[in-house]
């Protein structure tokens, strides 16, 4: 396994989860 590619893919996955958390928090703050 290419460790760098794993880190890259994991970072994308983490960013997507982070985006969900941020989006919900943003909606809650704005609402």
């Amino acid at each position: 396994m290419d460790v760098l590619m794993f880190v890259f893919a994991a970072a994308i996955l983490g960013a997507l989860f982070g985006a969900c958390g941020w989006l919900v928090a943003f909606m809650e703050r704005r609402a």
Partner: protein
Amino acid sequence: METALILGLTALLAWPLARYMAAAFAGPTPPRWGGLWRPFEVVERLLYRGFGVNPEQQMSWAGYARAVLWTNLTAGVFALGVFMAQGWLPLNPDGVGGMSWDLALHTAASFVTNTNQQHYSGQAQLSYLSQMIGVTALQFITPATGLAAMVACLRALVGAQPGVVGNFYQDATRAVTRILGPLAVVWALALASQGVPATFEGEQPVAWLDPAAAPADTPQQVIPRGPVAPMVAIKQLGTNGGGWYGPNSAVPLENPTPLSNLLQTLAILLVPLACALMIGPFTGKRRLGWAVVGVMAALSVALIATIYVTEYAPSPVMEGLASAPRALEGKEVRFGEGASALWGTLTTQTSNGSVNAMHDSMNPLSGVVLLMGMLINSVWGGVGVGVINHLLYLLLTVFLAGLMVGRTPEIGGRKLTTREVQVVCAVILLQPLLILGPLAVALAYPGVSEVGEGFHAVSRALYEYTSAFANNGSGFEGLADGNVFWNVTCAVCLIMGRYVPMIAPLVILARLSVKRAAAPTSATLRVESPVFGLATVSVIVIVQLLSFLPVLVMGPMAEHWVSAPQVVAGARDAASAAGGER
């Protein structure tokens, strides 16, 4: 008759299951039921201790959402590592290599979101370890997450303890130990009894019937096997859908007999239906529960009836011929049109995504029915999340009905204000944004997406993103979806389509739960009435048609119309006239 039998049998099993589920999640001390829970509590205590969590600690919506996201992210990264490293990990008797980063990212995102959209072929590209701890483990964790989120939303709807919605770890653990685990054991044994493989031995070598005709590079053929039955059981019960074999339950090894087909069709609908039925017993709002079930059942029956009409018709190209053939291309002959159509619509209504026929081959208008099931995504929807999606539509209908009758919209005596309605609208608008946005890119850059040409290409791409956002997982398999473009764009749809619509209703309901409830008056909008149910159906259908009718017209509907015999005959005449002139 067969359909009525399957649906009736499912309803018969779902009602006691719903009562059982309502009791299983009633906490912290559920009804004793003669010590029924004791063995489960022993296992659960061990799990709580092992993971170091305190199941008694009550969480706010924010704490609950954080627990959902962190748990799922951890599981997703773990699965990602297993998929990429499977080449040198154990339990790999067939020597399968590791996945590329983009395919592993898509596969991890797909399985952690309860979608099971597959851009790979399971029997050839996953080791047994990946199938077991990367795929099957997530097939338990993700429906458990959906069930937990649903009970949190229902607790907030009742508002018995304003500000808190339960404990995610306790809810998710109970979902696995008390509901999904026992059901999966029963179903796995039943499927294994029908001949679905359940073994750790590797591929089964089989001699060619005519060795002289064997290809030079394949002197011996092999049949891939593995612990298939347990995986198929939870794939159906947990609205997961991802099969052991690439063609899913169309393969005789995964679905060998009429009884295995009945068991799997039943399992597709069982838990989602039980989720809707448990609203009444769990919240004490029995009339509201029946109203939700009524709306879902009306839409479900409409979709089933429509697909029977569209799928029993011959392909539009063949229509009007003296001996129009039946639409059997892409179907298992042993299941025929009826069992394939019923499975197709149930698997898209419930966000399951398993198939026993190729959806790509169904008549174009059947494609519209399948797409509508996924777009609505709350008839009956995925385990837990179907009810959550329905609550979102319920809140929107309360707001719109309030506008129509000129009263401040309220639910359970608690007023819906602009702030809550803004969140509802934002979540509903996220769906067209995340489906139509990447679809437009895919169609605008066919060189990158390799989407193909014509109306059917639009249908395929639309189906792919709709399936990803709805966390369904089925596909129009003609799409060349195994490249970086599809893997990454679908991963975005998968994650955003799972967690935002799951958590946002929890936020709204938790906010409502801390408001003071006004006593009902004669002018109060009764959300459990048939008229309100009709309004909910209208809102669901209108919202979806407003968002997606243009693209449905450009895809499957256009495909139907241009395939109509008179159009085909007209084109043929025009072509021969042009040939004659030449």
